[in-house]
Every structure is written in structure tokens, then in C-alpha cells.
């Protein structure tokens, strides 16, 4: 492994950052150029992550220390199998979403703000997954959270600004909690670097404070009850491609942070001894039930999707708290599945809103006949969400359930089943009405609704098909990656 490889993480993070500036400069001259550069940046970033594949698969861990801020505190990068998997997933979804944005955003205002922010958020997201220490993770986490505020309030409506304010305050609370957790870790361990042996080795009240702080900080981002309050407001008001990223990718950074904290800061042993996981399990169960139950009552399509995200993030949090190998595999695989499914759903919802201007589910009767491709994509992802067999959502729930049984917790399996039933309750009516329902309002004003442009359809199609493929194929890259990542977290090797 040469110097060039160890520099790759820096490149992957810095390249989009630099391109942000370039786009910022170019956009005043040519819109076409701006869009092309944004797409090119996301493609190059994805390919750069892909270059790491052989090295990661060979079991090597890529490390790079950038600079020291204070003694034992600095910006460093470290890519292991878990970070790589999520970076690959994120850059892939990001690439598709950027392509989708071109046609979606062409009628929107403020594109000159949207694209630089989109690319900068990509950079900080990559930084989170490739961080070599808690401090770097924190820096990029804060950057991503603060910058994505601009995406949330993009519409600049009163509603958006109010949701944005909520988001901002929660972000600050989360950031401060993380800061507190990190500083306690630093005080107890003298270092915050990830990947070595567990940093905190003894239970103490300070260590417990740290655990709670991390839980608040990362849980806030992951939409964990009771800190999820910002999510159902912030995700729907953003433009749909941004919602797809917020729900599909950025929520996962919270889950990722928690995984790092559990396995690298505290370590498996301490977690099992202390029994602190009960707290996480309890809030995860509430999160699942609450998210799914509230989603049923929502009439706004994007709000329903947002609440569904809350419920699904509950699965991921629950999977973490079980701490058996299969549960962890299912957990990480669900991060993949949910990212793919939820971005499909949001992108499809975006296409519908763009073409019809309707957001209310009651008005979406017959839409499947008018926009067959979009709704097929939506249907595939929704079925995967419910957990119907050939889809990836089924595979993740199956593995999670096996993991729960390994740990002797059959109650969790029932919970997963029940929540799947709830998912069915809120997804199936949309699909049925879309394909078989009457067209509401059609008798007054019949407007011919066209299918969305192909630059929007292709990303939806690719994402929808992945939901199917990654549940069906025998050679399943995300599943393999999840298996290796879980093994790596538990045993330090794969």
C-alpha cells in the first residue's frame, strides 16, 4: 500500500470541498456547466471510493494523519471495512440524487445555492465515514449538520424556516452533547482515536455521562425517540432530492457514530457488563412503534415517509443493542437497505410532486396509471420496506430476527413482525389507490400528466432495482460487506 493510497481518504473528502468552490465560481457564468460539474464531482467521488475496494478487501486499513490541532487532538482519517461500506453506499446514492436533481431543481429558485451545498454536504459526509478519530468525526458531523440546514430551508417558506429552526436548535444540542462525550473520553483515555483497543475501560459515573451524551448526540441525528421531533418537520419541507439524502444517508451518520462509540469507545465487553444497552433498546422499541404508528395517521406523502424513517431507524438502533453477530449483520445490512429504499421513495415522491403538485395521499388516486414507471419504483421500494420476501428489506429483517433469537430475545421478533404489519398499513393503501383507485377531481379538470423526465426516472429505477437485487442475488455485495463489517467490529478482523 503506497503513499498514494493512504492519501485517498483525504482526496475523497477534499475533492468535493474544492469542487464546491469551483462550482460556486462557475455557476455565475453557466448553469449547464454548474450542473455538469456537480454530477461529475459526485461520480468522481464515488469512483474514488470504489478504488479503495481491493485494499479494503485485502484486509488493510488505510490511515492518514492530516494535522494536529492540539496535542493528541487533530484531523485524521482511517478507513476500515465499516467506514468503507457506508462511504460507498453514500457516494452511490449521492451520485444518483445529484443526477436526479438536474431536472427536479430546474424549476426551483436558488439552484446556485443548492448545488454547492449538496456537494459540500457530500464532502462532510465522506469525512464522517472516513474519520480516524472522534474529533474528526465530530467536526465533519457538525459541518454536515449545519450545512444541510441550507437544504432544509431551501423553500424559504415560513413552514420551512420554522422546521429549520427546530432542526438547528436540535443540531446544536446534539453537537454540544457530542462535545461533552468526546471531552470526557479525552479526559478518561487521553486520546480519542478510533480503531485501537476500547478507549474507556471502566464503568464510572463519568463514563456513563459520556455514553448518555453520545446517545443524545448521535441519537438526535438518527431520529431516536424522544429526539426525533425535528425529523418529521425537516425532511418533508426540503426539496425531494435533499429529503432523499437527509432520510437515506444523513440519518445513517447518527447510527454510524453510535456503532463507533459502542465498539471503539466503550468496547463490547464494557457494554455487556454495564447493561447500558438496555437504555438504547428501550428507546429503540419506542422509536419503532411510535414512528410506524404516527406514519399511518399522516396524509402528506413526504411526512408519512419521514415518520416511516423514524420507525426504520428504530430497527437499526435495536439491532445495535442486541450485540450478537447476526443481529449486527442485519443491522448494518439494514443501513444499506433503508438507504436504498428510502431514497427511492423520496425520489419517486419528488417526481409525483413535481408533475402533479399534489402532496396529499388522498389526492394520489390513479397516479400509477399516469406515471407508471415512477409508481413502479415506488411500489418496489415500498414492498421492500414492508419486508416482503424477495426484497432486501426482508433479508435485513430476517437476519435481525435471527440475531435476536441468538440472543434469546424472541420478543424482538414479534416486534419486528408487528412493525412490518404497520408498515403494510401505511404503504399498501398508497399503492393500491395509485394503481386501482379512482382519479379524484378528474371529472372537473382533466389534466394530462406526463411521466417524469428520464434523468429523474433512471435514478429511481436504479435504486428500486437494487432493492430487489440485493434481496435476491446470491452474490450480494452489501450483504458481504455487512457480514465483514460486523465481524470486524466484534472480533477486530474478518
Amino acid at each position, binding site marked *: 500500500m503506497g503513499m498514494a493510497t493512504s492519501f485517498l481518504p483525504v482526496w475523497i473528502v477534499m475533492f468535493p470541498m474544492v469542487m464546491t468552490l469551483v462550482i460556486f465560481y462557475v455557476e455565475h457564468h453557466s448553469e449547464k456547466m454548474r450542473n455538469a460539474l456537480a454530477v461529475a464531482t459526485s461520480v468522481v467521488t464515488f469512483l474514488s471510493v470504489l478504488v479503495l475496494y481491493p485494499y479494503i478487501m485485502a484486509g488493510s486499513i488505510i490511515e492518514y494523519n492530516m494535522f494536529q*490541532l*492540539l496535542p493528541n487532538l487533530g484531523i485524521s482519517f482511517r478507513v476500515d471495512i465499516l467506514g468503507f461500506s457506508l462511504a460507498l453506499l453514500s457516494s452511490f446514492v449521492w451520485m444518483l440524487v445529484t443526477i436526479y436533481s438536474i431536472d427536479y431543481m430546474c424549476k426551483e429558485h436558488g439552484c446556485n445555492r443548492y448545488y454547492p451545498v449538496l456537494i459540500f454536504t457530500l464532502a462532510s459526509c465522506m469525512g464522517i465515514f472516513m474519520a480516524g478519530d472522534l474529533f474528526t468525526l465530530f467536526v465533519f458531523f457538525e459541518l454536515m449538520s449545519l450545512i444541510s440546514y441550507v437544504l432544509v430551508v431551501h423553500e424559504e417558506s415560513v413552514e420551512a424556516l420554522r422546521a429549520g429552526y427546530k432542526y438547528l436548535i436540535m443540531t*446544536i*444540542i446534539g453537537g454540544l452533547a457530542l462535545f461533552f462525550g468526546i471531552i470526557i473520553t479525552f479526559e478518561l483515555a487521553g486520546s480519542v482515536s478510533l480503531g485501537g483497543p476500547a478507549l474507556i475501560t471502566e464503568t464510572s459515573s463519568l463514563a456513563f455521562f459520556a455514553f448518555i451524551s453520545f446517545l443524545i448526540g448521535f441519537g438526535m441525528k438518527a431520529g431516536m425517540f424522544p429526539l426525533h421531533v425535528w425529523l418529521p418537520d425537516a425532511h418533508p419541507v426540503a426539496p425531494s432530492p435533499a429529503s432523499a439524502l437527509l432520510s437515506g444517508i444523513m440519518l445513517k451518520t447518527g447510527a454510524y457514530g453510535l456503532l463507533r462509540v459502542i465498539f471503539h469507545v466503550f468496547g463490547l465487553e464494557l457494554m455487556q457488563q454495564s447493561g447500558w444497552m438496555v437504555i438504547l433498546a428501550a428507546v429503540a422499541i419506542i422509536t419503532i412503534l411510535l414512528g410506524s404508528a404516527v406514519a399511518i395517521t399522516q396524509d402528506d406523502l413526504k411526512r408519512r415517509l419521514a415518520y416511516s424513517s423514524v420507525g426504520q431507524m428504530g430497527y437499526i438502533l435495536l439491532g445495535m443493542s442486541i450485540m450478537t453477530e447476526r443481529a449486527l449483520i442485519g443491522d448494518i445490512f439494514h443501513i444499506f437497505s433503508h438507504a436504498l429504499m428510502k431514497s427511492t421513495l423520496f425520489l419517486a415522491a419528488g417526481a409525483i410532486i413535481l408533475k402533479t403538485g399534489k402532496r396529499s395521499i388522498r389526492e394520489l388516486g390513479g397516479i400509477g396509471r399516469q406515471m407508471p414507471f415512477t409508481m413502479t419504483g415506488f411500489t418496489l421500494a415500498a414492498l421492500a420496506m414492508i419486508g416482503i420476501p424477495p426484497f432486501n428489506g426482508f433479508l435485513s429483517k430476517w437476519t435481525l430476527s435471527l440475531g435476536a433469537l441468538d440472543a434469546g430475545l424472541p420478543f424482538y421478533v414479534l416486534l419486528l413482525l408487528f412493525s412490518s404489519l404497520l408498515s403494510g398499513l401505511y404503504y399498501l393503501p398508497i399503492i393500491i389507490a395509485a394503481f386501482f383507485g379512482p382519479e379524484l377531481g378528474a371529472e372537473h379538470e382533466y389534466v394530462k400528466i406526463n411521466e417524469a423526465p428520464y434523468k429523474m426516472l433512471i435514478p429511481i429505477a436504479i435504486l428500486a432495482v437494487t432493492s430487489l437485487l440485493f434481496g435476491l442475488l446470491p452474490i450480494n455485495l452489501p450483504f458481504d460487506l455487512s457480514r465483514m463489517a460486523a465481524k470486524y467490529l466484534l472480533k477486530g478482523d474478518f
Partner: protein
Amino acid sequence: MSAATHLPALVIVVPLFFAYLMPLFARWREGWSTVTALGVLAFSFAGSLVMAWQVMAYGPFSYQMGNWPPPWGIELYIDYLAVFAALTMTGVGLIILVYASKDLPHELKPHLLGWYYTLYLLLMASMVGMALTNDIFNLFVFVEICAIAACGIISIKGSGECLEAAFKYLVLSALGSGCLLLAIALIYMVTGHLNFTFIAQALPEAMRLYPNNILAALALLLVGIGVKAALFPLHVWLPDAHSSAPSPSSAVLSGLVIKIYAVALLRLLYQVFPASLFEVTPVMTILLWMSTLAIVVGSMFAIVQEDIKKMLAYSSVAQIGYVFLGFALLDVSALMGGILHIFNHAMMKAMLFLAAGAFIYSTGVRKLSDLVGIGRTMPIPTIAFTIGAMAMVGIPLTNGFISKWYLVLGAIHGEQPFFAGVILLSSLLNGIYYLPIVVNAFFSEPHGAVAEPKRLPPQMQVPLAVLGFACLLFGVAPSLIMGLVSRASQALFGL
């Protein structure tokens, strides 16, 4: 003897001397006073830099005024804390003065310009003097010069509001000076010395003989300096004074003047009074709670303000609490955080006040609710304001994060995690009152005067850019200043 050996005296005396020439220069040729004042301050800044280099390379040294050895003569003692304070004051002071050169003609009557520079240089000279002196009576003299000059630059606009605020300041500050003088008299009475080093040597013995005198002196000192540094609940004069003064004055008052008193108190508490004193009296505990209240109450008052400069002024009340919290936690890390925050807050708050001044200069608007959309019409001041707001909240990669890091680390290390919680709570409160301004500035449509601002001259834009850059630079590379800060705090702990 080369001039370099007299540098410690020169950095004080040169601005003091030129201060009185300023009205003459102003009368002589238009604009000369500006250039001279800038040159004089640049000299002081360069001198402080050289002294900083000397101290870092060869260790602290002392300078005897007129070659009279202490305890009779006045001694300047140039140690890490002294050069740190001198650098902060002259550096930030210089940047503010550049800004003032364009803002003042807008705010003041033309014949007052020269006098303003007189007051400004006097203020600077007295602050550098307070930083360097090792003599308690000399300290008092500088405190008086500083108080009167500060009063002058508040009242110079001559509006009713300014005069009222200046009068309030004058009365309270005179009260503080009185306390200080009494404290000095009490100390002189029991020790027979005015030089810090000699007082420190004589105090343990005097403590045994006259404990009440020393306790009274300590109490008077705390109140005297507390008033001047606007430590809660002695802060009542600050919001009026800092908000009604011309913007460069506000920047220098909030950014620098209240800090230099904190430095003076730090030196007296850690270097002059014996450590055994703190075992019999809970001074540090009192200071700890006063600063906690300052942090929480100051932030809460700031939330409800409508006027941008008043809000910034209340924020200063809270921020000076951080500095004192760092002193009072009795932990090296916390002390480093406190000292570093003097520097960081000087830059942040100066930048915020200058940005507010830029808004007022270009649009005449100072109500927060009317400043919506300003980010679209005045990007540079608003971006500076945003960086300042981020630094106030303590977002990583800004300088505010670094001081917060050390303060919280110190609180946890000193096993007082409650105060770590206080700092976090206050960061949240900072977020609540700073971020909506930033958000409204960028994400709302501008109306009225905000929509068509007057063009901002480059002399006012460049200082904002420089300070904004510095806030980020010292957030990314804090080691530039940490060497000095950590040695200063280690020296105070006798490590």
C-alpha cells in the same frame, strides 16, 4: 544601550506621548492624526511581538523605570501573561483603529476626530501598561487613565443616551477605583511594599499578624476590579455603555478593556496573594458562582434584546464569565481556557461589534428584527458576523471551540462537571440568540434601508475580513498562541 532594551517602556510611553499630539496633528493636516495613530499603534504591536519573541526565547525579564531598582522604582515585569495581554490589546486595537478611521467621520463631529485618537491612544497605552507593570500603585494609575479614557470614548458622540451611559460608567467606575485604592492602601499598610514581588514575599507573614486587613483588601479588590470587568452582578453599566458608544469604541470596550482588568485580577490572585489565603476564604468559590451567574444570566438577557449592540453587550457579560470561570476552577487546563478566551473573545466580539457597526453605517438600522435579508446586500459583514456567531457557539474549527475545549476539560479534570454543564448550556443559549440573526440575514428578503445599503469603504471591510480569518486561523491552528498561553498558565501555577 540600544533602544531595544527600553522596549517595555517604549510600547507604553510612545502612545502616551503621541496621544497628546493628536489634536495638533488633526488641526495641522486633515488625516494626519489617523496615520500617526495607526503608526504609533503599529509600533506598540511590533514592540509587543518582539517582546513576545524575547520572552519565548529567553524567558521572562524585568525592566526598571529610570534605572531605579525595586522596591523603590517602578518595575515592569515582562512575563508570558504580560506579553500575551499586550499582544492581544495592541493587535486587536490596531485592527479596530483601521476600521475606526472610516467609521468615525460618520459618527463624530469633525473637530472631535483628533480628540478621539487622543483618547484611543491613552486607552491603549494604559492597557499595555496594566499588562506589563509589576507595581500595584502604577497599576492603579493605569486603571485610572483607562477608566477616564474609556469614559471619554463612550461620551464623545455627545448624544443624551451616550452621556447618560458615560455618567453611569463614570460613577460606578469611580466607585471601583475607590475600592481599588483602599485595597492598595491596606496592602501597603501591612506589607510596606507596592511592588508585586515584594508584596507576595511579605504577605504570608502579614497574613498571620493582620488577617482582617488582608481580607478586607481582597474583598475591596474583588469588587473594584469586578465592577470594571463587568462581572455579574456588577455589570449594570456595561450594556448601556457598550451599546450607545460609537461602534469602534464598543468593539474596543467589549473586546479589550474589560479583559485587561481580568488579567490584572488574575495576576493579583495567583501571584500576589498567598495560596494559603484561599484556604481560609472561599474567594475562588465566590468567583466561580459569580461567573456561573454571569454566563447564564448574561446569555438570558441577550436573548430578549431587540437592539443588535445591546445584545452583543449582554453577550459580553456572559463571555467575561467564561474568563473568570477559567480562573476560578483552579485547574491548569481551565486556566489555559480562561486566558485563551481573553484573546479569542477579543477577536470575536470586536468582529461582531464592527460588523454591527458596518450594518449601522450602511443602513442606519440597529433593530434585530429589521436586519433581515442583510446577508444578501452586505455579504462581507454578514459572513464575518456568521463566523463570530459560530465561534460564540463553539463550533469546531473556530477559535471559540478551542477555549471551550480547555474550559470544559478543566472543569471535568477538576472534578466539577457541573460547570462543564454550565458552559454547554451557555453555548446552547448563544446558539439561540446568535443563529436566528444569521438565518434571517441570509434567508429572508431585505426591505427598506437594508435592501439598498450605502457602500462600505474597504477600510471597514478589510478589518472584518482579517478578524474573520483570524477566528478561523486560531481555530485550526491554535498552537500559534497556545505556546504562550500554556506557559503563562503554568507559570501562574508555579509549574
